[in-house]
């Protein structure tokens, strides 16, 4: 496969073609099977967290080191001179990008990664820009789905929880829309999929439906993607009522497909009970581990012309 990702910025999942998504998934699988501690040899990656995100940072920096690269950077904008001295992001990027071969960043404002990519000479990888995009999360989700189902094509996938504010759900649905999947949306009316996204899916000819009863749809599914509902969005009684309706417990999983898997971007609170962990359907911890492979795949494709 030709590597069209070489030297490319990875800002938004919508920038990636179906072929590019497949290339990343294939590369992740290959690296998971055969570690490649040589692919980033001699490369320095800037890891710039203008906003703290321990999971993403650890996963990303592990990926750099597993490929034989080194990283420089900082883990919270507030603790560096960058935020404090009032320097613009544009100026920070111009300076940092002269030290590194690639720039991985997380920032609290939407659009920050796109902006950074316009001021950087090296590839920029978005590790989350405010409430907007978090493409490496989507890539590890796709990899986990591919790994467990053997394909991304024609799957039945349910999303449950906070579908309104959950950017991981939005990006994953947009990516899977390229693979002829069918979606089931399970959420309280206050947290349902935003209309503009439904419009986009409709225009792309994607089949989707809305549901209230999680148990009823489980037997049809290949993947259940659970997200956390933030308690703060509800008053306590409302939250309890809602919670009881959308929580996944082991006894709901009595007639699911053998290949069925439960995914969750983590951290989980109480939307998946602990008894689910012991079932063969739980895949969320492997999914988190896959984050390292997906990020290795992305880094290696962006920084070297050849795919493995």
């Amino acid at each position, binding site marked *: 496969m030709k590597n069209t990702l070489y030297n490319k910025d990875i800002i*938004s999942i*919508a920038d990636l073609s179906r072929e590019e998504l497949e290339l990343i998934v294939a590369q992740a699988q290959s690296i998971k099977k055969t570690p490649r501690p040589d692919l980033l040899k001699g490369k320095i990656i800037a890891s710039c967290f203008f906003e703290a995100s321990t999971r993403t940072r650890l996963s990303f920096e592990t990926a750099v080191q597993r490929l034989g690269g080194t990283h420089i950077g900082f883990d919270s904008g507030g603790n560096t001179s960058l935020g404090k001295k009032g320097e*613009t*992001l*544009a100026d920070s990027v111009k300076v940092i990008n002269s030290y590194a071969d690639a720039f991985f960043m997380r*920032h*609290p*404002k*939407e*659009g*920050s990664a*796109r*902006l950074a990519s*316009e001021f950087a000479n090296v590839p920029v990888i978005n590790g989350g*820009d*405010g*409430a*907007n*995009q978090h493409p490496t999360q989507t890539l590890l989700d796709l990899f986990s789905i591919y790994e467990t189902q053997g394909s991304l094509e024609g799957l039945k996938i349910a999303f449950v929880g906070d579908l309104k504010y959950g950017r991981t759900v939005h990006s994953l649905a947009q990516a899977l829309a390229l693979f002829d999947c069918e979606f089931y949306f399970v959420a309280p009316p206050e947290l349902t999929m935003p209309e*503009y996204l439904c*419009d986009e899916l409709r225009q792309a000819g994607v089949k989707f439906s809305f549901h209230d009863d999680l148990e009823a749809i489980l037997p049809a599914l290949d993947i259940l993607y659970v997200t956390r509902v933030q308690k703060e969005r509800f008053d306590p009684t409302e939250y309890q009522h809602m919670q009881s309706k959308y929580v996944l417990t082991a006894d709901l999983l009595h007639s699911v497909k053998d290949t069925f898997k439960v995914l969750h971007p983590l951290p989980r609170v109480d939307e998946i009970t602990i008894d689910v962990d012991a079932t063969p359907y739980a895949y969320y911890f492997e999914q988190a581990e896959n984050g390292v492979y997906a990020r290795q795949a992305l880094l290696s494709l962006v920084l070297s012309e050849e795919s493995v």
Partner: protein
Amino acid sequence: MTGRKLKVEAIASGTVIDHIPAGMGIRILNFFELTKQQDRITVGLNLKKSTGGKKDLIKVENTKFTKEQAQQLALFAQDATINVIEDYKVVEKFKVTLPEAIEEVLSCPNTNCITHDEPVSSTFYIKEQQDKVALKCHYCEKSFHQSFFKELV
């Protein structure tokens, strides 16, 4: 009123913007800062349309709209027509069309958008969905109906 039609004086040269939805005329004047120029402007508000309903109309002397301005005009008045007048005659007449993108003039309604802190000008991509127009920010990727822009209301 004696006449059934409001007569708006003819202009020697300039631009007549016709078929503006009633109520949008003033917004257009403000947005394009037409009143800041010294040229004479005639505005007709709530004029009767031959097809029924009401419209606004703007005549600006000695002013030509650029293609870019004509496209921006479509954000307010999708069915407007622009008549270019020379020597009291209409020498060119065209319907406005929405541009693919609009640069610089709009500020992103998303207060958490990076464009508010940085040395960049905005870009919005325009998408027509059925009868709605949505503007999508190049940076924060959020889509907004035109009523969300302070420059357009």
